[in-house]
């Protein structure tokens, strides 16, 4: 296979939030012009302001903006873009969009539409992997449901009894835990298939579901792979992603505490074989389940840049987005397998606007105060600033906090210190919860599996009462005014007041709240 050079001068970034910011920065370093697209709600978002040009697509709903491939291609034509980077989510794994880009003469920075289609259909992907000799989890497809969404119980039972219980119902075109159900026994299986199909139809536009045997206490370990148009394929080691809530990863690390040299080599080879089996071009991820005995099974291949790519960049010292753009431009991979090494230990925590005390429900509102941690080995990938709004339209992830340290214990300590120095006020976040996970002795011991949070932190509650005195003392001083070190008064320190549109100045408000008869 030979690739032809395709000149890229202007990249349209078909995404929002931190990943759009990440891609725009990489483009800038490569000397490329950038075009952002945004919804009306994101007109003043960080990614829209950072790009050289921003095009407003439409109303806030993703279906009316970030998922409108036609409007995005139109924006590319109007701004003279010659390549499209899809980020992750939205249209990143939409084969039709990749095809439309190619049809419009644009370089799609990702694998071919054919590969996206094959890997996006989980059942087809399983078949390809089995053929390539990559181990897969035992499972089967389900018959079509009736038009009203009901499944024929007998047909479902016939398939599922064969696979065995407990089993997982999964969306054939899914990802990110949506359209997924764990079924303990045959009595629940039909209802679970219907619920998963309904959720899948809503989230992915296709309600096809299939079933897989449930592997108990598995680890979720994925390999970063990279291929080019010259038939080269390499892996950039693994990421352990076992810490998940509601099937969404919240803490990832590399290297995995579970892999020794032999298992890492075997899984790395399988991952590269998977990439070669489909002639993979660009960045991709091969996900495996690893059971407690060290058997590994192909789970799925993600044909995009992963959310958690920063930890791979930290340990390998490579820039994956830069390499994506170069490969898409028809250049060979910048590395051979033997060039790639990993140093130290990296951890990423996903900081979400959500309430761990209330079923991880998203917490919406304005980021009234936001300070990001810094220091050696600390990286923050954020798409928001203080004053921005966390809205119901988009994923409530605020940022990804990643650290690199010489070893795992040092990385955990560095992450804990960084989380404690990451004040976010205005929405509820999972920061204290992340700290509670890192503090578990089982985490320190590296005994991770995908049920870790349910097992070790069920019904978790904040321990904020421990610091209640500190909070009251600080609030008391803040209320009393802006007396600063050196004796300056109002204006230096003081109490920032929410810019919630009510218009009162901070000092008017303080007056109003002052206790009657005092002061």
């Amino acid at each position, binding site marked *: 296979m030979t690739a032809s050079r395709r000149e890229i001068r202007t990249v349209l970034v078909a995404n929002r939030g931190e990943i759009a910011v990440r891609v725009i920065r990489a483009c800038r370093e490569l000397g490329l012009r950038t075009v952002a697209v945004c919804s009306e709600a994101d007109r003043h978002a960080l990614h829209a302001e950072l790009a050289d040009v921003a095009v407003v697509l439409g109303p806030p709903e993703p279906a009316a903006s970030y998922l409108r491939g036609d409007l995005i291609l139109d924006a590319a034509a109007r701004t003279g873009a010659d390549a499209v980077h899809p980020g992750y989510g939205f249209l990143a794994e939409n084969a039709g969009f990749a095809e439309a880009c190619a049809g419009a003469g644009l370089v799609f920075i990702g694998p071919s539409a054919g590969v996206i289609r094959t890997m996006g259909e989980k059942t087809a992907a399983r078949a390809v992997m089995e053929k390539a000799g990559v181990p897969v989890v035992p499972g089967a497809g389900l018959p079509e449901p009736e038009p009203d969404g009901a499944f024929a119980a007998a047909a479902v039972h016939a398939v599922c009894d064969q696979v065995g219980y407990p089993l997982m119902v999964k969306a054939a075109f899914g990802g990110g835990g*949506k359209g997924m159900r764990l079924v303990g026994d045959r009595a629940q299986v039909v209802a679970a298939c219907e*619920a998963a199909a*309904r*959720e899948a139809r*809503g989230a992915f536009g296709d309600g096809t579901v299939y079933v897989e045997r449930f592997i108990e206490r598995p680890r979720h370990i994925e390999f970063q792979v990279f291929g080019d148009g010259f038939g080269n394929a390499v892996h950039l080691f693994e990421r352990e992603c076992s810490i998940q809530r509601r099937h969404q990863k919240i803490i990832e690390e590399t290297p995995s505490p579970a892999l020794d040299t032999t298992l890492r080599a075997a899984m790395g080879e399988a991952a590269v074989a998977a990439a070669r089996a489909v002639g993979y071009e660009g960045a991709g991820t091969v996900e495996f389940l690893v059971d407690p005995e060290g058997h590994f099974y192909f789970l799925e291949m993600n044909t995009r840049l992963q959310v958690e790519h920063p930890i791979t960049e930290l340990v390998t010292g490579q820039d994956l987005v830069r390499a994506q753009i170069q490969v898409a431009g028809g250049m060979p991979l910048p590395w051979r397998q033997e060039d790639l090494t990993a140093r130290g230990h990296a951890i990423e925590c996903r900081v979400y606007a959500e309430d761990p005390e*209330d*079923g991880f*429900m*998203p917490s*919406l509102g304005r980021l*009234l*105060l936001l*300070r990001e941690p810094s220091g050696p080995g600390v990286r923050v990938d954020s798409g928001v600033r203080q004053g921005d709004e966390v809205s*119901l339209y988009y994923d409530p992830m605020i940022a990804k906090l990643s650290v690199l340290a010489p070893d795992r214990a040092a990385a955990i300590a560095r992450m804990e210190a960084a*989380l404690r*120095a990451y*004040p976010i*006020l*205005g929405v*509820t*976040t999972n*920061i*204290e919860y992340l*700290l509670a996970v890192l503090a578990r002795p089982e985490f320190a011991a590296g005994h991770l599996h995908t049920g870790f949070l349910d097992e070790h932190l069920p019904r978790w509650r*904040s*321990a*904020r*009462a*421990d*610091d*209640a*005195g*500190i*909070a*009251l*003392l*600080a*609030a*008391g*001083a*803040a*209320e*009393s005014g*802006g*007396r*600063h*070190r050196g*004796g300056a008064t109002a204006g*230096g*320190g*003081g*109490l*920032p*007041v*929410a810019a*919630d549109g*009510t218009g009162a100045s901070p000092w008017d408000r303080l007056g109003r*709240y002052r*206790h009657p008869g*005092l002061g």
Partner: protein
Amino acid sequence: MQLKFRDESGDHALVVRPESDAWLVTLDDATAAVTVTAAGDGAWLVTGPDGRRRRAWVVARRDERLVFCDGRVHRLRRPDPVHADAASTDGGEGPDLYARMPGRVVRLLVAPGVEVAVGQPLVIMESMKMETELTAACGGVVDRVAVAEGQIVAQGDLLVAISPPSNE
């Protein structure tokens, strides 16, 4: 200056006095005042009796004061005598079921007149593309279903009204 704050443990009284470049704050019945210094950037340094300093960030939102300290967030309220009756708007305490966040009603699992038990699923909601089952906080009889399947609801909207069992 005297202040009152309310947190999860109840009401607290503070006395705050200026002292050169800091504030001396006395909390409730404490005998000694604690030194609190503005560190700029919205941060405050609270120096404990052992000399150890803790850093806290404070921001105001209406009658609330939000404080971040070592990864934990505290919500304090300035008790407001005028609006004392306009208590919590969460509505999460009684038997009635409210929407905890904006979303779409996917499916109604109960009808008026039906007897429900604690934990029984009442409504399937979809928010941020995730389906969530909302369950009964306590047993009772469904009085009224206030929404229809497919309806978009706002946070705090009543979904299902429930009367507690009458023989109490």
